């Protein structure tokens, strides 16, 4: 993807916000009283400084009358803390910071102090958000989760869902249902019955005996027996106790079959099919609790059990989680933390990497990525799998051994087999197809920045892309936001073509930096990308590029930090373990909630990051903080009210 990112703004907008508010490092999530005070101060600044600033310098072109570029501040001014406007404020701060706005020919220009106040306020605008776990919507099981759940419930191969479309999981999850999906769910239900149960009229198999119990002896009321089966079936398939009305529906299905003259086992079979196409099975739904006028309530324990289990195992809760939920204990923070540790210790927590880790590190795309087969004939499915497994095993080691997240950047070990080892030049040391832990002695290697799978994923099919690598490190590792290039960026090729032709890729890319529009972003992106140029497009070490030119991996990052090799670059980046942890915690929280973070989430993340830092950036602590966080454990049950009551006052 030839994205040409051009500016890094987030560091100003996000980092340092906690410092500005005067919280000591290590403070836990601020108390509600602290937050209220901060919110009041942020509102005051808005009324006294920001609203006049916007009215003076912005609204003439971006207001009610004119909406240049489709941008207007009139609604944002009425509800400055609205989550919908956070992106708009951040964009405004970045154009002010770059002096792109107001345009040069505008009547008035803000003073540096005014501009600084505005930018600082935008960084703090998250404090206008009220304490809110975010919009909660019941969630459909994704393809992997459905397969695993059917496996746990009915011992069928999870691949039985194979025909369902592949899905984006996590923050971009498309939580919708369509007629096509519903048809597929019905087909899957039919196939599951066929696979799991003995043929009709044949003696029941073990699964039937487990689900349906024995055939009731003559003299008993079959409907009463069916009711018991329905209760237990619904409890496990719905992952919570079923309401009376829900049991009644299943019994009506039973009656339907009986009225049609079906046998008792055959009627139960139809009932099971009804369970498998019910919304309570296909979605994670709350138990029907007592009516409440509260807008926000804690998740009930069964819903929490599901949320936790689907996050770490991509499947339904096991019996221990069920028991804790039944006992009403799961929501207790210590109990919840202990369960996180237990789930992570199990091999089933591999699901966390397959669902989340692979997406974070981008290695999930490797299997299908196109490579130039003439240049890289070794990019076979086996090598791609080994690359994926190398990233997975490092991730799982950091999780299970509860290591610091800094190990992602700096580690002296990795996992190799005989397919992958040649890329490290270790083909003599490693034999056999089994992935095993290997101690690294070459200081240029270790951690995700020198991992072939990741280096390959950020390359073009036939060559490296220093820009892609730079963007990847900034966005995926450090959590910076790299915006897309503005329209009308003058292209490199507009330079004198003959002059450009004689330059190396590095020299050509550096032309970005002669143009002030591009420079401020590329001065961070490019050094990182070029600092990794010693690794080719599939992650092998090289001293010369494709054209035989020597690799120049030296560079400088802001703060006069010089480096001359990938190893030194890595050392500089490893000092930013705090940023890495915050980024990882934010991404995991978004993945767990299946939505983007906004507003109040940022405040939660600040508190979480401090606590994680205090515990040496340990991975299990990070996961526990996410699972015990307010947005993970609560839900909003009524629509958010329109703008806060004082919004009007603030606009004037």
């Amino acid at each position, binding site marked *: 993807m030839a994205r040409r990112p051009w500016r890094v703004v987030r560091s100003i907008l996000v980092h340092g916000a906690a410092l500005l508010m005067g919280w000591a490092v290590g403070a836990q999530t601020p108390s509600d009283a602290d937050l209220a005070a901060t919110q009041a101060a942020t509102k005051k600044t808005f009324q006294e400084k920001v609203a006049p600033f916007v009215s003076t310098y912005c609204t003439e072109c971006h207001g009610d009358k004119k909406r240049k570029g489709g941008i207007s501040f009139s609604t944002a001014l009425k509800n400055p803390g609205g989550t919908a406007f956070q992106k708009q404020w951040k964009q405004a701060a970045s154009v002010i910071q770059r002096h792109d706005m107001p345009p040069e020919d505008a009547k008035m220009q803000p003073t540096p102090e005014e501009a600084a106040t505005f930018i600082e306020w935008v960084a703090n605008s998250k404090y206008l958000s009220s304490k809110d776990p975010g919009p909660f919507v019941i969630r459909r099981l994704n393809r992997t989760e459905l397969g695993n759940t059917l496996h746990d419930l009915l011992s069928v191969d999870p691949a039985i869902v194979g*025909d369902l479309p592949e899905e984006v999981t996590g923050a971009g999850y*498309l939580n919708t249902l369509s007629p096509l999906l*519903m048809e*597929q769910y019905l087909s899957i239900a*039919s*196939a599951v019955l066929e696979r799991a149960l003995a043929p009709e009229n044949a003696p029941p198999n073990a699964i039937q005996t487990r689900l349906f119990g024995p055939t009731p002896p003559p003299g008993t009321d079959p409907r009463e027996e069916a009711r018991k089966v329905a209760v237990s079936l619904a409890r496990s398939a719905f992952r919570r106790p079923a309401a009376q*009305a*829900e049991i009644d529906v299943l019994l009506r299905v039973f009656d339907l079959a009986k009225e049609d003259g079906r046998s008792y086992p055959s009627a139960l079979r139809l009932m099971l099919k009804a369970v498998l196409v019910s919304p309570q099975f296909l979605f994670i739904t709350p138990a029907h609790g007592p009516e409440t006028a509260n807008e926000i309530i804690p998740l009930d324990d069964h819903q929490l059990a599901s949320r936790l289990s689907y996050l770490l195992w991509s499947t339904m809760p096991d019996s221990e989680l069920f028991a804790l939920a039944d006992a009403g204990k799961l929501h207790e923070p210590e109990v919840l933390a202990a369960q996180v540790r237990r789930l992570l210790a199990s091999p089933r927590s591999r699901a966390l990497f397959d669902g989340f880790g692979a997406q974070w590190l981008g290695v999930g795309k490797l299997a299908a990525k196109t490579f130039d087969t003439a240049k890289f004939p070794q990019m076979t499915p086996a090598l791609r799998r080994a690359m994926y497994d190398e990233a997975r095993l490092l991730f799982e080691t950091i999780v299970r051994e509860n290591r610091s997240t800094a190990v992602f950047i700096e580690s002296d070990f990795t996992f190799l087999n005989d397919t992958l080892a040649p890329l490290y030049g270790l083909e003599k040391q490693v034999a056999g197809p089994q992935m095993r832990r290997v101690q690294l002695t070459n200081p240029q290697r270790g951690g995700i920045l020198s991992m072939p799978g990741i280096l390959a994923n950020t390359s073009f099919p036939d060559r490296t892309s220093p820009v892609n690598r730079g963007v990847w490190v900034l966005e995926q590792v450090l959590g910076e936001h790299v915006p897309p290039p503005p329209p009308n960026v003058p292209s490199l090729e507009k330079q004198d073509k003959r002059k450009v032709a004689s330059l190396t890729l590095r020299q050509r890319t550096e032309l970005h930096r002669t143009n002030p529009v591009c420079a401020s972003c590329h001065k961070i992106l490019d050094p990182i990308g070029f600092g990794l140029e010693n690794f080719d497009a599939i992650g092998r070490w090289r001293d010369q590029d494709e054209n035989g030119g020597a690799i120049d991996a030296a560079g400088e990052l802001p703060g006069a930090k010089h480096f001359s090799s990938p190893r030194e670059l890595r050392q500089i980046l490893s000092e930013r373990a705090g940023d890495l942890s915050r980024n990882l915690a934010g991404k995991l929280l978004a993945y767990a909630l299946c939505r983007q973070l906004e507003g109040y989430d940022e405040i939660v993340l600040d508190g979480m990051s401090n606590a994680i830092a205090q515990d040496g950036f340990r991975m299990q602590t990070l996961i526990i903080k996410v699972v015990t966080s307010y947005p993970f454990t609560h839900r*909003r049950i009524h629509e958010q009210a329109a703008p806060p009551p004082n919004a009007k006052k603030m606009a004037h």
Partner: protein
Amino acid sequence: MQRKWLIDRRTYLRGLGASLALPLLDCMGWADLPKAARYKAPVRLGFMYMPHGVIPEQFWPSAPETFLSEAAPCLESLRPVLSECLLMKGISGVPIAPFNGAPHALELSTWLTASLPDSKRRNVVNIAISADQIAANYIGGLTALPSLELATMPQTHKENQEGLNEAYYSHCSFRSPTQPLPAETNPRNVFNRLFKDPAQRGASTADGTRAPADPLERRMLDLVLGGARDLRRTLGSSDQHKLDEYLDSVRSLERRIASIEYRQKEAALEAAGVSVSKRNASDSPPLEVKIPEGDRRSDYMKVMCDLTVLAFQTDTTRVSTYIGSTPNGVSYPELGFTDEHHSVTHHNKGAEKVGKVARIAAFNVEQFAHMIQRMHSLREGEGTLLDNCIMMWGSGLEDGNNHTRENLPFILAGRGGGAIQPGRFIAGVKGNQGDLLGTLLSSAGIPLDRPIGIATKLLPEINAA
């Protein structure tokens, strides 16, 4: 996770080198009409997409007068059927401000909606019902499937430009503003979906066994639907909205089962000597679809096109969309180079990349041409299947190099049952994407209760005098 066709196709097509026979042939009214009475075939609407635009100089015909005699390089494959095609220059796309940083996230999702996403909540899908679904709402109830959605690649692109939900990259059909429709990517599944009872289709049964249909299925679904309505009442309003999607999908499923039952009744009537046939003696027999072995993209796209033809020919659906490729990460190794489509479109007029973009566009038009020629070769009523269709091929950008959308490239084919007069190139049309979509729908006899997206008018130029 984004996946490319190369690998997927291998999985799909493994061991499938076989031609598929219609299982329900004898219960679909394929017997001939006994008397001279003629059955008037309905109008069908089909859309096929390619991202990233074209090389305009190689796409647009040089002049209206020479349209039929001098095919533009990109249209070479259409030469035998140019008399059935209509091109118009001057149809503009949706201006994408304030999403200027998201040209590719929006090119596909604005294509059939002519609308922009909700800018307030960008990470949830909220755009507009798409033109194909407006059509499906009107004529979809008359066929087994209201509409057919096909794609070449899984719709899982993971990137968000301007904070827009990933789904905007890879979907063009929206059943409602918040409900993007997933597309089928596996030809075998498409075939099963078109011609087999949904309850009979066991998912991924590698051994080929099928679970038997249960005659009580529809009534069971009715009870489940009742239970879902109970559940809906206990939920908050946004959750209720999710349940509405469920209710709608189950109802649609019930209709599917009912239509299969209806076909079976028709078959019984035919067997008893009562003709309910919906075809004429002179009509071509149904197309035999061959699912190829190997992993050539062209073979794969052609079979998807054939399935569309078959679905139209058998009146299994009257509305289709085919996303030939999505806006990111696609390569065409079959053409002898591995460059990603997107990266070569930023060609800055460099000859090599321009050549590659032109070849990719010509390749995509070739697959469309294959479909059009098939339709043109099948007799239906007084003319051909194509005569009763309105087919549109197009892209959401004009020129991918600088993301222009002033003159969107479109190829229309077919006569829409006589409403459209093809064989022309109309230069200097003044209209937008919404105008065009509205005109196509109204040419197909679909009444519009409001303009589509940014539409302001109809384009009578395309209609037959």
